[in-house]
C-alpha cells in the first residue's frame, strides 16, 4: 500500500472509491456487533459468505458493526431492497438467498413484528428505526469495520483531507465551536472551546485522549461505534489533533471490550499504512500517532483525572487539578479529552457542513455553543419497553417519541403495566416522571429536571418499579464504584446505602428522609470528583418526584409498586383463578397448591416472593399485597 503524499492524493482516492460503489449490486449486511455475535451472527455470516461463493451468487456479504437492535439479533439487511430480517439462524441462509435475494420474496417468519403483530419489511420502516436519525451510526449497517476502504467509499477521511488542504488549524476550531458540538461523555462541555484552550496552552508535546472507558452499566454506544466504525473515531481524532497541535493521541479503552480493541488496532494499522498516522502526514509536516491504553476496569477510571493517572501507570483514582487539563493534563502537558462519540461526530461536521449540523438539535448556538444541544445523541434504551437497543436521535427528541415510538411502548401493557419514569444519565443520573414525557431531551433540559445526559443511558420503568428500590440499586452500585478517596462520597454512599436498605425492608424512619437530604447536599458540594458530586442524584430525584413512595414504605410499610420483597405477599384471587395450574408448576419453592380447575392457594410460609406466579398467570388472578392490606386480607 502506498502512503498518500498529499491531501489531494487522498481526496481523489476517496472520490474514486465513492464513485466506484455500485449501489444496485445486491448486498447482504450481517450485523457482527458484540450483541449479534452473542446470538450467533458469526455462523450466519460465515454461511452467507460460503454459499455466495459456492453458488457464485452476484452479491457482496458485508460483516458490519452493530445496528443497535441487538435484542433481535442476529440481524440481516438485504440491499438494495433494505429488507430487514431478525433472529436469523444459519439454517435460514439458503432460504434468504433463494427467496429474497433471487426471488424478491419476503420470508414472513424472519420479519420483525411489533406488539400488535404487524410485520415490517424495510429496515427504515421498522418503528425502532423509523424515528431515528443515524449519523454517527449511519455507516454501521453498511461497512465492514475491518476495511478502511469501506469507510472511504462512504466519504471517509475526505473531511481530514480537506482540513489539511485548507491548512488552517484555527479555522477548524472555529468550525467546531460554531457547530455547537458538546461532549457526549458526561458534562456536555463544548468541544470547540476545550480544543481552543488546549491549542492556546503552552507546552510540548500536546496530547489528545479518546475516553473509551464506558463504565455505565447498560451503556454500549461507544463500544458499538468502535466496533462498527472505528475509522470515524480516528478521523475525528486526526482533525482534532491537527487543530490543537497535538502529536500523540491515546485511546483509553476498557479491558472488557476485546472486539472493539481488535477493530481499533486493525484500523490504526491501516491508517498507518496509508500514511494517515505517523510522520509528515499527507506531506503537510503534521506528525501524529495514536496509542492504545487499556483501562483498569473501574467505573471511576472514566473520570478524566483518574483516567490520566491510569495512563501514567498509577492506580486510576482522581487527582487534584491544580491547573485545567487543557493546560496541564497528561504528564503535566496540555491535554484534550473527549468521549468516543464526541470524536466520531467531528468528521460529519466537516463533511456535511456546520449549517447542516446546527439544523439538527435544540437552541441557537450562533452566539455560544452553550446555548443549545446540536447534532444527534445515541441512547441506550433499556428497561420495561418493547424494543431495547441503541437509538440515535436528534437532540431535542421527546422522551415520548423515544419510549413510545422507537421503544414501542411499555412491555406487558396488555397486562396493565404503565409508564412510571425514565432514568437517564447512568448510575448517577436521575429519574424523570411521566409529566415530563414531552420535554425534548438535551443537555440543559435533563439537568434542569435534576437528571443529566451522562453518557446516554435511558432506563424505562413501569408501575411495578419501586422508586426507592431504584435509588437503593444505584446507590449500592456507586458505593462499590466510589474510589474511596474522599469522605463524602465514600461515607455518604455507605450511609445512604444503609438507610435505603432499611427503608426497602420496612425499617425506615421519617427522620431518614431529612438525613438522606443532608447527606446528599453535602455530597454534591463537598465530594472530590464528579462521581461523588453526582452520586446523590438517584436519591435526590426520587425524593423530589416520588417522595410518597418513601413515605409509604416508612409509615405503612407499603411498597407502592409491589416490588420490595420484604413488604409484599402474593395471594391468589379465588374469583379469577381458573385452576390452570401454571403458577403451581412454575413456583420454585412449590408454595402453591391446588388441583386442576380448582382454586389455587399460596402457602405463605413457603413463598419467597419471587413473583413468578404473578408473571405467568394469564388471568390476572395473582394479587400482590403490601402494607395494611396484608393484615386485612391475610390476617397476619
Amino acid at each position: 500500500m502506498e502512503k498518500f503524499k498529499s491531501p489531494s492524493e487522498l481526496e481523489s482516492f476517496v472520490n474514486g472509491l465513492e464513485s466506484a460503489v455500485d449501489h444496485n449490486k445486491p448486498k447482504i449486511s450481517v450485523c457482527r456487533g458484540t450483541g449479534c455475535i452473542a446470538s450467533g451472527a458469526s455462523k450466519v455470516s460465515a454461511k452467507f459468505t460460503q454459499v455466495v461463493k459456492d453458488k457464485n451468487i452476484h452479491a457482496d456479504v458485508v460483516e458490519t458493526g452493530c445496528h443497535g437492535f441487538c435484542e433481535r439479533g442476529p440481524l440481516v439487511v438485504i440491499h438494495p431492497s433494505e429488507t430487514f430480517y431478525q433472529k436469523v439462524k444459519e439454517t435460514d441462509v439458503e432460504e434468504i438467498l433463494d427467496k429474497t435475494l433471487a426471488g424478491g420474496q419476503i420470508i414472513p417468519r424472519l420479519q420483525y413484528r411489533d406488539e400488535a403483530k404487524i410485520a415490517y419489511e424495510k429496515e427504515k420502516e421498522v418503528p425502532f428505526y423509523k424515528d431515528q436519525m443515524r449519523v454517527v451510526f449511519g455507516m454501521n449497517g453498511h461497512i465492514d469495520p475491518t476495511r478502511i476502504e469501506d469507510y472511504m467509499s462512504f466519504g471517509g477521511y475526505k473531511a481530514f483531507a480537506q482540513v489539511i488542504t485548507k491548512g488552517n488549524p484555527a479555522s477548524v476550531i472555529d468550525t467546531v465551536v460554531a457547530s455547537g458540538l458538546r461532549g457526549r461523555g458526561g458534562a456536555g462541555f463544548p468541544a470547540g472551546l476545550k480544543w481552543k484552550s488546549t491549542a492556546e496552552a503552552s507546552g510540548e508535546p500536546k496530547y489528545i485522549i479518546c475516553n473509551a472507558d464506558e463504565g455505565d452499566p447498560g451503556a454500549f454506544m461507544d463500544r458499538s461505534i468502535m466496533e462498527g466504525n472505528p475509522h470515524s473515531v480516528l478521523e475525528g481524532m486526526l482533525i482534532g489533533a491537527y487543530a490543537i497541535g497535538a502529536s500523540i493521541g491515546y485511546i483509553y479503552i476498557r479491558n472488557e471490550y476485546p472486539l472493539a480493541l481488535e477493530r481499533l488496532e486493525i484500523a490504526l494499522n491501516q491508517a498507518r499504512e496509508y500514511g494517515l498516522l505517523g510522520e509528515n502526514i499527507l506531506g503537510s509536516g503534521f506528525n501524529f500517532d495514536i496509542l492504545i491504553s487499556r483501562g483498569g476496569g473501574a467505573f471511576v477510571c472514566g473520570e478524566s483525572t483518574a483516567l490520566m493517572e491510569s495512563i501514567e501507570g498509577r492506580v486510576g483514582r482522581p487527582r487534584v487539578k491544580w491547573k485545567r487539563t487543557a493546560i496541564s493534563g497528561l504528564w503535566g502537558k496540555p491535554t484534550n479529552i473527549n468521549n468516543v462519540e464526541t470524536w466520531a461526530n467531528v468528521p460529519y461536521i466537516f463533511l456535511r457542513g456546520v449549517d447542516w449540523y446546527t439544523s439538527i438539535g435544540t437552541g441557537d448556538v450562533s452566539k455560544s455553543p452553550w446555548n443549545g444541544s446540536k447534532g444527534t445523541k445515541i441512547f441506550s434504551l433499556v428497561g420495561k419497553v418493547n424494543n431495547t437497543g441503541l437509538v440515535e436521535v436528534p437532540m431535542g427528541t421527546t422522551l415520548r417519541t423515544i419510549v413510545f415510538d422507537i421503544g414501542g411502548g411499555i412491555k406487558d401493557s396488555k397486562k396493565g403495566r404503565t409508564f412510571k419514569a425514565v432514568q437517564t444519565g447512568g448510575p448517577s443520573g436521575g429519574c424523570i416522571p411521566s409529566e415530563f414525557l414531552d420535554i425534548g431531551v438535551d443537555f440543559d433540559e435533563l439537568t434542569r429536571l435534576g437528571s443529566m445526559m451522562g453518557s446516554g443511558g435511558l432506563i424505562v420503568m413501569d408501575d411495578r418499579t419501586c422508586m426507592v428500590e431504584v435509588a437503593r440499586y444505584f446507590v449500592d452500585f456507586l458505593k462499590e464504584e466510589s474510589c474511596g478517596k474522599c469522605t463524602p462520597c465514600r461515607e455518604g454512599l455507605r450511609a445512604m446505602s444503609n438507610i435505603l436498605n432499611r427503608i426497602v425492608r420496612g425499617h425506615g424512619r421519617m427522620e431518614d428522609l431529612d438525613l438522606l437530604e443532608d447527606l446528599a447536599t453535602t455530597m454534591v458540594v463537598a465530594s472530590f470528583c464528579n462521581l461523588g458530586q453526582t452520586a446523590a442524584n438517584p436519591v435526590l430525584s426520587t425524593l423530589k418526584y416520588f417522595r410518597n413512595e418513601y413515605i409509604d414504605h416508612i409509615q405503612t410499610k407499603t411498597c407502592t409498586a409491589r416490588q420490595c420483597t420484604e413488604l409484599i405477599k402474593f395471594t391468589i384471587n379465588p374469583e379469577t383463578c381458573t385452576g390452570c395450574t401454571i403458577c403451581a408448576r412454575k413456583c420454585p419453592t412449590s408454595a402453591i397448591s391446588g388441583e386442576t380447575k380448582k382454586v389455587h392457594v399460596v402457602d405463605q410460609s413457603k413463598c419467597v416472593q419471587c413473583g413468578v406466579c404473578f408473571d405467568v398467570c394469564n388471568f390476572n388472578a395473582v394479587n400482590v399485597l403490601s402494607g395494611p392490606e396484608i393484615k386485612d386480607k391475610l390476617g397476619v
Partner: protein
Amino acid sequence: MNIIINGKDVAARKGETVLEAALREGYDIPHLCYHPALKPEGNCRLCLVEVGGKVTTACTTTVRDGMVIELDTEEVNKHRRTVLEMLKALVPKSPILEELSAKFGLGKVRLASSDEVCIKCGLCVRVCAELVGADALAQEGRGTETFFNPPFNEPSPDCVGCTACAFVCPVQCIKYEKTDDKITIWGKTMDRLRCTKCGASLDLTAEHMELIKKRGTNLHPENLNLCDTCSRAETLRTMKTVVESQLTLS
C-alpha cells in the same frame, strides 16, 4: 498579593494554597489529611471554606490576588458538620474528632457506626512513599472497602520501621511496639541498631539506615551507627587534639 479572609486583608504568597495562607496568618481551618511536607490531596474534605461564594476545600485551592474567602458561613459549617458526622460514624472513638465536633457543634451522630479506627485520609501511604521513600504501604480496595496497609496486609519487605506513618496519622490509629532491641509495626518485627561503641539501643533499624545513606553524599558511614553521646566523644577527641596542638604552639 492579598487575599480577603472573613473580610480582612491578609497577605498571601503566589502559588500557596488558601489553607497554607490562612494557617500561617493564624486562622483556624480544620484539616486532617493535609501535611505541610506533602502536596495536598483533598481527601478528608474537612477544610471546607467559601471562595467567592462557592464551597470548596482550602487545601486544594491556590490563592489568587483579591480572592474573597469566608471561613465560617452557615453553609460551610453545615457541610463541615455533615462530613464530620460521616467521619465520626466511621471512627467513633477518636479524641481529635471529639474535639472538632465540640468546636463545630456537631451533636449526636445519626449514622450507623462502622467501628473502624482509620479515617482513610491516606497520609500514612503518602508519607511512606513520598517522604521516607520506603513505599511500603498501599491503599487497597475501593469504596467503603478501602484500607491502608502494607500490600495484601502482609508484613512488607519494604517497611523500614521508621514509624513516620504512625507519627503523622491524625487519629493515631497506627500502633507499634518498641522494646530495647526490637520494633514491631504493621506485623513486621525488626532489630533496632545498637551503637557500635557503647551498645546503646538506637531508634533506627538497619533497613532505615540503608534508606538514609542513599539520601546524601555528605553522610559519614563510620559515624552513622553511633549514638549521639559516642559521636560527641569522637568530636571531643578531635577538638582535644586541635586544642592540644594550639596550646603547645602558644
